[in-house]
């Protein structure tokens, strides 16, 4: 474990100008000295040119070595970074030379784990590092870079408030009549509600954090011939230069990733012909089921120029309360047949060619965004609507955006505990039970920052990291 000295390549696999091999642990300096014998004196944090040799003393490569003594290093241990030439053969031999002298291959994320265990980083900061590495857009990277500081500010304030409340409850329990407590009952309950609400808001922010960092998946569903595939091409087509194709899956779904302003968005479209369904509702459900499983947002694409039927209504039912946008196609066709030739509409498309009151009450197109795949009308407006649906929070923005599912779960626990405390306080169980709930809330907060990070938590977290970080 971390009393070992670990080694790994810190740069990606493959040929390049440079590669970095990183050593960390109590023996990092000794191992580096042995791999690079002789040369200039080792001076902390100063790069020096050295000759790296193999176990038999033969020259391996000329490297630039930098020694960062612990505890003021990334991991808290002595760290040595060896920059060699970026040939996988050389890199492998260099790592092997380090292992031959007593280092052990690092596991994923183990450098950062050492940093956490040595108190150089808290868990939130480590997760931010992970998020920064994984971020698929500049905006995501920025969010990740800011996350640690923002979340720390939020958790520090939360801890203060929880401690104040706990102290208040304890004072009431242990010193009644001495009016040491300074809060009214209403104030305590309001404070608990406030914390619960803030934590719920923070928990909800993981949705935005994930979308910004990992990008979002947007699925198109709708009956055959509604213009779904044309819309898909319209949405991804103009960004072709940025499109990265991913192979279609067995589900026969086509995925294209594009940048929507600063968001990485992957659109998913079910390709291929669908057989004419006899039981229309069942077909609609089957169609939707696959896509709905793992997307952040659904575009329900309906033909604007045909009446809606059982299939469409089945799809709407299927969507339920999931985030979705109803898109009606063929805006140009509808307008023309209505004899309304005035709107060229391309670019804004906000004008529905059929007024809402001319459609039946239950026609899902009453709340649709209208587009035309032929003229391009409404596509930009749809892009803006997609972006807004993915990242714009309706309520006041939380003070921080969470960057991991773990953080979300703990924020929810804190909110739950505060609600439990409130129930106890205003009900039968009383302040001793409430105080116990606050103790659990504080424990969850400690787990969030890693003051109370169990082995299992660390294992789960760092397993997702890349090796060398």
């Amino acid at each position: 474990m971390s009393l070992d000295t670990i080694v790994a390549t810190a740069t990606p696999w493959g040929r390049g100008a440079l590669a970095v091999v990183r050593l960390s642990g109590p023996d990092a300096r000794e191992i580096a000295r042995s791999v690079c014998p002789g040369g200039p004196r080792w001076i902390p944090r100063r790069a020096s040119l050295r000759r790296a040799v193999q176990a038999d003393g033969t020259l391996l490569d000329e490297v630039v070595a930098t020694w960062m003594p612990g505890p003021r290093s990334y991991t808290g241990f002595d760290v040595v970074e060896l920059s060699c030439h970026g040939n996988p053969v050389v890199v492998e031999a260099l790592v092997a030379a380090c292992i031959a002298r007593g280092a052990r291959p690092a596991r994923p994320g183990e450098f950062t784990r050492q940093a956490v265990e040595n108190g150089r980083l808290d868990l939130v900061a480590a997760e931010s590092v992970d998020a920064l590495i994984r971020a698929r857009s500049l905006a995501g990277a920025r969010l990740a870079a800011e996350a640690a500081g923002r979340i720390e500010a939020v958790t520090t304030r939360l801890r203060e408030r929880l401690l104040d409340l706990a102290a208040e409850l304890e004072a009431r329990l242990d010193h009644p009549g001495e009016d040491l407590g300074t809060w009214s009952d209403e104030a305590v309950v309001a404070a608990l509600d406030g914390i619960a609400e803030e934590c719920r808001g923070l928990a909800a922010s993981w949705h935005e954090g994930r979308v910004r960092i990992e990008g979002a998946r947007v699925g198109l569903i709708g009956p055959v011939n509604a213009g779904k595939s044309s819309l898909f091409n319209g949405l991804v087509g103009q960004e072709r230069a940025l499109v990265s194709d991913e192979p279609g899956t067995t589900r026969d779904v086509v995925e294209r990733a594009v940048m929507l302003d600063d968001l990485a968005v992957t659109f998913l479209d079910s390709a291929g012909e669908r057989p004419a369904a006899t039981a229309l509702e069942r077909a609609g459900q089957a169609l939707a089921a696959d896509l709905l499983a793992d997307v952040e947002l659904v575009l329900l694409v309906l033909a604007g120029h045909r009446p809606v039927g059982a299939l469409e209504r089945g799809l709407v039912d299927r969507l339920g309360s999931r985030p979705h946008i109803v898109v009606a196609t063929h805006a140009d066709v509808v307008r023309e047949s209505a004899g309304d030739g005035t709107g060229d509409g391309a670019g804004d498309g906000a004008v529905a060619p059929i007024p809402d009151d001319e459609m039946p009450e239950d026609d899902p197109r009453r709340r649709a965004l209208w587009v035309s795949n032929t003229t391009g009308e409404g596509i930009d407006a749809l892009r803006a609507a997609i972006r807004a649906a993915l990242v714009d929070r309706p309520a006041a923005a939380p003070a921080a955006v969470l960057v991991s599912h773990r953080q979300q779960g703990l924020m929810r626990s804190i909110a739950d505990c505060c609600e439990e405390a409130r129930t106890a306080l205003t009900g039968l169980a009383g302040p001793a039970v409430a105080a116990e709930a606050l103790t659990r809330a504080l424990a969850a907060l400690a787990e969030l920052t890693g003051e109370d990070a169990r082995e299992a938590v660390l294992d789960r977290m760092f397993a997702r990291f890349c090796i060398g970080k």
Partner: protein
Amino acid sequence: MSARRHVVIVGAGHAGCEAALAAVRAGARVTVVSLSRRAIARLSCNPAIGGLAKGNLVREIDALGGAMARVADRACLQFRRLNTRKGLAVQSSRAQVDIDRYPAEMAAELLNPANAGGGVDFVRGEVAGLTLRAGRVVGVVLADDTTIACDAAILTTGTFLSAVMHRGEERTEGGRVGDPAAHRLSARLRALGLRLGRLKTGTTPRLDGRTIAWDRLQVQADTVPDGHFSFSPPTRWLPTVDCHLAWTDDGVHQLIRDNLHRAPIFTGAIEGRGPRYCPSIEDKVVRFPHRDRHLLFLEPEGLDTHRVYVNGLSTSLPAEVQDAIIRRIPGLEQARIAQYGYAVEYDFADPRDLGHDLQHQGIPGLYLAGQVNGTSGYEEAAAQGLVAGVSAARGDAFVLGRDEAYIGVLVDDLVTRGVGGEPYRMFSSRAEHRLLLREDNADRRLMPRARAEGLLSDAAWARFERKQEAIAAAEAWCAGASLLPDAEGRRRCDAAGIQPPRNKASAAELLKRPEVDWDLLGTLFDDRPEVDAEVAEQVVTDIKYAGYLDRERARAERTRRMESVALPRDLDYRLPGISHEVAERLRQARPRTLGAAARLPGVTPAAIDLLAVHLARGTAS
């Protein structure tokens, strides 16, 4: 020498008395050495027993066969229940007691020849030192150089080690007005290698009740007639006496601020730290500058004295300033001070040197209990006395778990964490399992154990068994009796003023509703058994709070498992994943079990997990 162990108790205060009585119950021959019979169980500060968390200690002492509760009941002038509206677990009792009758009743218990083995031998004298043979205590040396041979000695010397009293610029040697300090013993203990520290505490002025304008003061409400501590109720009560309330005001606060330069705690004359939870009035004025008044309780000291204790006005300001303060307090303008308040500074022995039996780890046979260990309060002292008394009598540790008793929390806190710079007082917040450690169930928690260890009288045990049977019968009835949602059921619910149940509901299910109590069950069911209030309380608590109690018991069980994992004394703690800081703390404290390690400040639960894994691997390999 007889097979019975001989235990010598040094001191006859609250720790000493309970230690002596416990040692007698546990089968030892007991000698108590004290300066005089007048020193037995003196109430040097408040004329009161109990209070929050302390009341729980008193009930636990009773459940373990100790004397404090029944003595308090016999001397009780007024009984109150605190926190009665605060839900589960935090209710406590407090009794005003007669300052003369309490010690007299305790002396009667202590010197009663009807006690097992003919009671205790009482020796008048000052203890000057200990005799050791091969590192073990074998005798207690008196100031006149006589030695009393013993198997174990329990030091319960209170605040008397190198004690100095302060009032304004005056310094007097002694641990209580009129009583000398113990210097020789202090020096001797230091020479034996005990780590001594210094603490401070204070007391309030006493007034002459005849000079107080009682009709201008408010009477303190909420007394409980016939209230009592002991699980065996007293047969007679003293007449009830009221306490009154008074308040300081801005004028008083200004007067104090003007004289802070004459207060020993601010001039630096006192080096020991005082308790934050029981601050002197000068402390309160400085620390809470925005408070325009502080509450004072005027507590009568007894039926045969006019003296009145001014709770809340602890001070060591000079006498003339104390006079001026009292005269500024509405209702006390004419009051005369019968005894001035003072602060006392004294040596205490670091309890981290003791084991869970309160025996010194380096000097077998030497036990320490009470204020000498840095605690505050009669109840904390008595509780330690009981633990030390049983342990010393048996030569075997009598340990209560933190999930069994406040006494267990007290002893464990003292020996693993120490007192942390101020006298240690029990609070409910110190007990992580306080939902289980209630005043009302102290007998159910502790009496079976006390009986098994031979500490509980036949009469108390018989009473307890009857109570247990009544509880079991009533709980069985609650589970079996049911109310139907028919016309009759609805009529009864109407009469009781509750919503009728939708389906058939048992009495237990109905009892889980916040608005239903034992009395209401009598309206709902004709056959509700008639039981004592204390039985009904147990039944209602068991059923109403079952969810919380089950969760708490599960938590206690987890903790208990950690308590059973011993940590090797030579463990290095330099383990992967444990930070240098945490490892250093563990190396310094050398906790005996994983549970004790978990309770050390600054040791994270994560580190405990790692330790557990490490130990498990160690035993596996």
